């Protein structure tokens, strides 16, 4: 690992200031960034830890919206997001117990790994990503694999999830990494259904709009039985072909609807 200056600011304002430095990089729980730095694939000259900012931590509920602080570890979401059980369950299935004690929602969403879990929850819930500068709707936030609407130096301060009537996340593990080989988040709101798929696409998390339409009319697994997922833009890798992932999208969506 290339050496760097480590700073741990106490406030968002201080963090924003620190991130203005040349080569500065924000650090959430470090569960992805640290291994990347070991491989010298990331070489920040200043690492700005966000874990010392109390204001970025915790889960709260108000007006049907559950808000998670940007530096809240997955384990805390799993334990305290009881108002949104599907989200709590998703958080409790990320990585492993030790990873969940360090990894944060902000880190996950800022990285936008195409096989990560949180992007599915955010997109599937129509969440709002709140930064030190602005609010970004999930539909605008995810811009492709490892790409988001965040500007350099912008910090995710919280994520607000409208709480659905029913929801479920069904993940099929990539067996080695325990990321999603493919996973589907289904959320039913008054008048609409959102279906978000992670792990499957070369473009990162995406909405399966055909299923949303079908499920909005009839929220039952049978409603999608006639739909077909095209494998065209899906990932083929060691762990599964595009065709296989297309199958998983449909199977897991059905299971998520049944579980919701």
């Amino acid at each position, binding site marked *: 690992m*290339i*050496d760097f200056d480590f700073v741990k600011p106490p406030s968002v304002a201080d963090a924003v200031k620190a991130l203005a430095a040349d080569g500065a990089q924000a650090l959430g729980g470090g*569960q992805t960034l*640290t*291994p990347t730095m070991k491989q010298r694939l990331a070489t920040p000259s200043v690492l700005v830890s966000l874990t010392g900012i109390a204001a970025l931590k915790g889960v709260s509920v108000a007006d049907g919206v559950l808000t998670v602080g940007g530096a809240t570890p997955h384990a805390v979401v799993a334990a305290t997001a009881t108002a949104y059980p599907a989200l709590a369950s998703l958080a409790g299935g990320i990585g*492993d*117990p*030790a990873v969940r*004690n360090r990894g944060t929602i902000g880190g996950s969403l800022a990285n936008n790994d195409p096989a990560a879990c949180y992007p599915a929850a955010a997109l599937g819930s129509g969440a709002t990503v709140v930064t030190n500068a602005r609010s970004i709707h999930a539909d605008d936030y995810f811009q492709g694999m490892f790409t988001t609407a965040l500007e350099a130096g912008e910090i995710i301060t919280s994520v607000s999830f409208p709480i659905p009537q029913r929801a479920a996340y069904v993940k099929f593990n990539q067996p080695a990494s*325990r990321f999603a080989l493919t996973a589907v988040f289904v959320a039913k709101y008054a008048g609409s259904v959102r279906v978000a798929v992670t792990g499957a696409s070369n473009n990162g998390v995406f909405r399966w709009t055909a299923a949303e339409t079908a499920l909005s009319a009839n929220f039952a697994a049978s409603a999608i039985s006639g739909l077909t997922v095209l494998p065209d833009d899906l990932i083929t890798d060691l762990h599964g072909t595009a065709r296989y992932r297309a199958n998983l999208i449909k199977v897991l969506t059905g299971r998520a609807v049944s579980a919701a």
Partner: protein
Amino acid sequence: MTKVTMIVNGTTVSRETEGRTLLSAYLREGLGLTGTHVGCDTSQCGSCVVHVDGLAVKSCSVFAQDVAGAKVTTIEGMANADGSLGVIQQAFQDHHGLQCGFCTPGMVMTTAAMLAVNPRPTEAEVRHGLEGNICRCTGYHNIVKAVMAASGQSAMAAE
């Protein structure tokens, strides 16, 4: 270099660190606490698990400066005050939950954290709770038995 102070196994310690000094290196090289092992470089194997303020973390993925001031417990801090094996350690010996011993410190630390929040886990919960710790020797059979036994449940009932 930045001086980092922590409370490790009940003792306040300070060592000079670089920004890149990982907690695992702080413990192993700085303090000579070599019971914490490093078995991979991708935060997967769990041999390096320690407790930071009571929570299990992978010390190879945490920078020492990020946990300055924390209370850290390592495998060296898990025996009873009289030096005898603690309940979890004893269960691992009683049920042959280790062979080469390399993954063992991480297994014990993960188990301790698991049982702290779930004192009587089911077999499935134990297996799920150990998913971040890789063992190549035991096939997990006797580790699962040991964890069940450490939680006061009959190891035989687990089979």
